[in-house]
Structure formats: C-alpha cells, structure tokens
C-alpha cells in the first residue's frame, strides 16, 4: 500500500523538478531578452541625440532630448507621410486578398473531395520553397511593360495577392478546426458547398484567418526587395524610404535611425497588442507543418 502510493508521488515530484526553470535558466533568458531588445533601444538612443553626440566615445547609452526633432526631420526628408500611407495600402490590400483566397482554397483542400486534390496541394507546398526574388527580371518586365505599372502601387500589390503559405496554413487550420460531421449534416440538409463555406466554415476559420492576416501584414509591411525595384523616392513604402535615407559617404545616423524608429514602431505596437496571437500563429504553422 505505502509502496504503490510512494512511486507515483515521487514521479510527480520529479515532474516538477524536470520542468521548472531555476535561476540559471532565468539568467540566460534575461541575457537573450536583453540582446533581442537592445538594438531597438539603441535606435532610440541614437535618434534622440544629435549627430555630434553619436560620433563620440564613450557613446551615449541613454536617450537624449532631440528625439522629436530628429523624428520630424527624418519624416520630412524621407517622404514618410507618403511612405506610411503607401505601406498601409500595400500591406492592407495584400492581407485582405491573401486571407480571402487562402480560406477559400484552404477549405477546398481541407474538406472537399476532388480529383487531383493531393497532387495540387503538393504543388502548393512545393511553391512555398520557390524564392520570389528569382523571377525578378521577368516580373519587372511584365509589371512595367505589359501592365504599365512602373512606380505604381498596383505593381507592388498585384503579384503578391495570393500566398502558398497562406493556403497551406488555412488548410492545416481548417482540417482540424472544422468537424466533418458538421459539414455532413449540412450536406444532408441540402446546403450547397458555398452555403457551408459561408455559414459553417468561415465563422470557425476566423481565429486562424486573423493570425494569417497578422503574419501577412507584418511580412509585407517589412518587405523591401520588390518595392525597392518598382517604386522611386517620391513614392516609396516605409522600407524603401529608410533604405533611401542611409546612402552616401557621410551617414547621419541620428536621422537614419529616426527613420527606422518611424518604420518599426507601428509594427511594434501591433505586436504589443496582439503578440499572443502572432506567437500562436507561428507555433501553429510550425507544428502542423
């Protein structure tokens, strides 16, 4: 009696022992956290000082008083009014489209039976691994010469309206989130496929779609390569704008890093508000992948 009870008890004691973090783990995580956040803190320190304070040893390690001056100077020089609006339009439109097309296709791949389904889904997964940079030359020719969208936001938006990752993500999400019986019941009641999509699948898909939307928005807010090629300095996105501020032999880091603060902080605010969902989304995509 005492023996049989003591074994599970000691195992439970070990359970806590194996998994609970002790101080070395907290110390290591603290150091990692510091390294993760420090460069952003540093961007605030530099952009709150004038150039001469940055070009001196020992460097200032706490923020100074010129943050607002540098932010507004960078804002005007870098065309950030236009840039912020452009980035919002670009990332917003792409997000809406990616979420919409991905829930549609994800639903079909997760819950409908049709000929060639597995082969087509394999194609989707394979295309996730094809880097878009590689098609840059023909894409530029197509967008500027065939469609006439040089320096036009449509040229930035339209080629990225769909995402293989999005389809993959929604398919994984809907496979487990939508119970098959619910669809069978709907079918038995004579509901068309579209009705089932609209009335049953979409409401269930909402949390997954929100996460996909967040990840997509962050991704295209931060994208540099394609907008850099297509847009000129008068009509930039924020990433193109900060890339433009920093060229030349003599770099004024106060202004350059003020630009990065302007470009980064909208995303940081989104992250502070919705970090839990973003983390959940990344981890979900990983496990089910």
């Amino acid at each position, binding site marked *: 009696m005492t023996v049989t009870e003591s074994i599970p008890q000691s*195992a439970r004691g070990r*359970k806590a022992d*194996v*998994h*609970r*973090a002790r101080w070395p*783990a907290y110390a290591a*995580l603290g150091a990692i956290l510091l*390294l*993760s956040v420090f*460069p*952003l803190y*540093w*961007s605030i320190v530099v952009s709150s000082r004038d150039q001469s304070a940055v*070009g001196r*040893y020992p*460097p200032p390690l706490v923020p100074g008083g010129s943050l607002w001056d540098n932010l507004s100077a960078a804002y005007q020089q870098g065309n950030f009014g236009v840039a912020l609006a452009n980035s919002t339009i670009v990332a917003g439109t792409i997000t809406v489209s990616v979420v919409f097309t991905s829930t*549609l*296709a994800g*639903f*079909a*791949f997760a819950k*409908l*039976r*049709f000929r060639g389904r597995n082969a*087509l889904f394999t194609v*989707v997964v394979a*295309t996730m691994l*094809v880097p878009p*940079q*590689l*098609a*840059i*030359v*023909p894409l530029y*020719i*197509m967008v500027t010469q065939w469609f006439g969208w040089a320096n036009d936001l449509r040229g930035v938006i339209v080629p990225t309206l*769909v995402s293989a990752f999005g389809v993959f993500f929604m398919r994984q999400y809907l496979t487990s989130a939508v119970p098959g019986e619910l669809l069978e019941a709907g079918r038995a009641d004579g509901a068309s496929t579209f009705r089932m999509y609209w009335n049953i699948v979409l409401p269930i898909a909402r949390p997954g779609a929100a996460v996909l939307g967040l990840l997509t928005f962050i991704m295209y*807010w*931060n994208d*540099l*390569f394609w907008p850099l*090629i297509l847009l000129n300095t008068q009509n930039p996105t924020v*990433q193109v704008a900060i*890339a433009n501020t*920093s*060229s*030349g032999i003599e770099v004024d880091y106060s202004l*350059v*890093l003020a630009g990065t603060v302007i*470009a*980064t902080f909208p*995303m940081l605010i989104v*992250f502070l508000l919705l*970090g*839990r969902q973003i*983390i959940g989304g990344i*981890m979900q995509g*990983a*496990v089910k992948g």
Partner: protein
Amino acid sequence: MTLRRQAGSSIRTRLHRFDLKGSPYLYITPFFVLFGVFGLLPLAYTALLSTTAWSPRRPGSEDSSVGLGNYGDLLGDENFHNALINTFGIGLLSTVPQLLLALGIAHLLNYRLRGRLFFRMGVLVPYITSVAAVALIFNQIFARDFGLLNWLLQPFTGGTPIDWRASTLASWVAVSVMVTWHWTGYNALIYLAAMQTIPYELYESAAIDGASRWRQFWHITVPSLRPTIIFTVIVSTIGALQLFAEPFLFDTTRNNNGGSERQFQTVVLYLYQQFWSNGQYGYGAAIAWTLFLITVVIALINFLLVRRIRSTE
C-alpha cells in the same frame, strides 16, 4: 407537367453534381490563376530570357538569342564565383549559429516559466523588426568610427578600430550577426512548438533512469525534433541563398558592389547589380535561373544529409 418536373429535377441534379465535383475547383482557382501569372510564368520566362542578350539600353536586343552563352559567361565570371563564395560563407556563418542558438533558446523557453508570454514576445521582437531596419541599426553598431561594437571591443583591439566593411571575414561576420539576430527567435518558437508535442513520459522515465538534463536533451529532444530541424535547415538555407537586404544596405555607397572589393556581394546582390545598375536583363536572368537550380540541389542535399545524420544516431 411531369415532363417539366423531370427537366427541373435533372437540372437540379446536374447542379448538385457540379456542386459536388466541380465547385471545389472554383475555390482553388483564384490562387492558381494568380500564382500561375505572377509565380510560374515569370519563372519560365526567366529561363527564356536567360538565352537572350536583352538590355533596355540596346533597343531590339530582346530578340538577340545567345543560346546558352550567358551560362558559359557565368562559368568564367570571377565576380559571380566571388558572389557564390560570399553567399555560402555568410550562409554558413549565419545559419549554423542561428539554428543552434534557437535550439538552446527553445529548450529554455520549454521550462515551466513565470512570465512565459513576456519571454516569448521578447525573443520575437527582432523578427517583427524589418530586415532593412535591422541592417541600418547594425550599420551604426558596426561602424568603423564611433560604432558601438568597436567601443566595446576597445580593450581587446588596443585602440585600432576594426573596419568591419573592409575585410572579407569581418564583413561576413557583421552581415551574419544581422541575419542571426533577425531570425533566431523565430526559429526558437518553431522548435518550441515541436518540443511541446514530445510526450512528457519520455522525460519522466529518462529522469527515473537517472539521465541528466543534458542527456535528455540530446537523446530525447533532438531526435524528436528531426522533422522540424530538417524543415528549419531547408528554409534558412534557402533564405541564406537569397540574402540581399543586409549586404545591400551594409555598403553605404549603394553601388551594389557589396564592399569596395566585393567582399560581401551576395549572388542576389550581384543579380540586382547586373539587372538594375547595368541593365543586363538576359545575364541577370541567367544568374537567377542558375541560383534557382543551386537552390533546388542544395535543398535536396540538405534534406538527405540532415535525415542521414539524425537517423544514424
């Protein structure tokens, strides 16, 4: 009457049959149409373009076929070889530490922690920061004169600041630090997600058998993560082969040389230079297509290698 009802019901059956068999294709059509036009078509068109000497600076040159001539030129192009070496060097210097660090961080995050969300959000902050912003912030940190890192290194360098852009190895290290800082936390969360699916009993029985935490980590955690490790190795290798923004922004002259002697010019930066600065559409396309083939081969090698290493254990 009966006829009409029959006709009506046959239309309805046909509609119903279409709804069952045909409509799934409608749901996937938007994806495949747009992907075909802006994904597959450009990739195929790249192959075609790479056999021409098209340059917008020479009108009429779009029809000037050179066969495989561009590829022959690439074989003898020292700048291309240099770009390949830089890409592989920076790729190794960034991918390996990044994934090892991520594994360690994930292990720490997998403990029962107070303030779990706080720590997870903390390690993900670099991922939320755009690559451009990362590169520009680190440009200051790696500046030769009055850069933060050179100040920290003063006791070791004896007053001579390191010119991070000047030498090949130093510039590779600098660029790799940017890449590592940006991606480590993201990969850590991916590993963490996979770690949480490992059955707890495995650790429990190992602990009862007296296995240390270190042994548990190597003999339970790492083998269980094998598919995830394969996935992250492939994804970050492909990312490393595409490296552009960091080396592009690290050279503040913006002539796309990647340093005065092309110390850190990567393949995509060289592609960008040929295509954008020199207007060589055909040659640029040949670089792109070659890089695509290299990417496919390396992804396959990675896959086989990682699978092999873990299964021989």
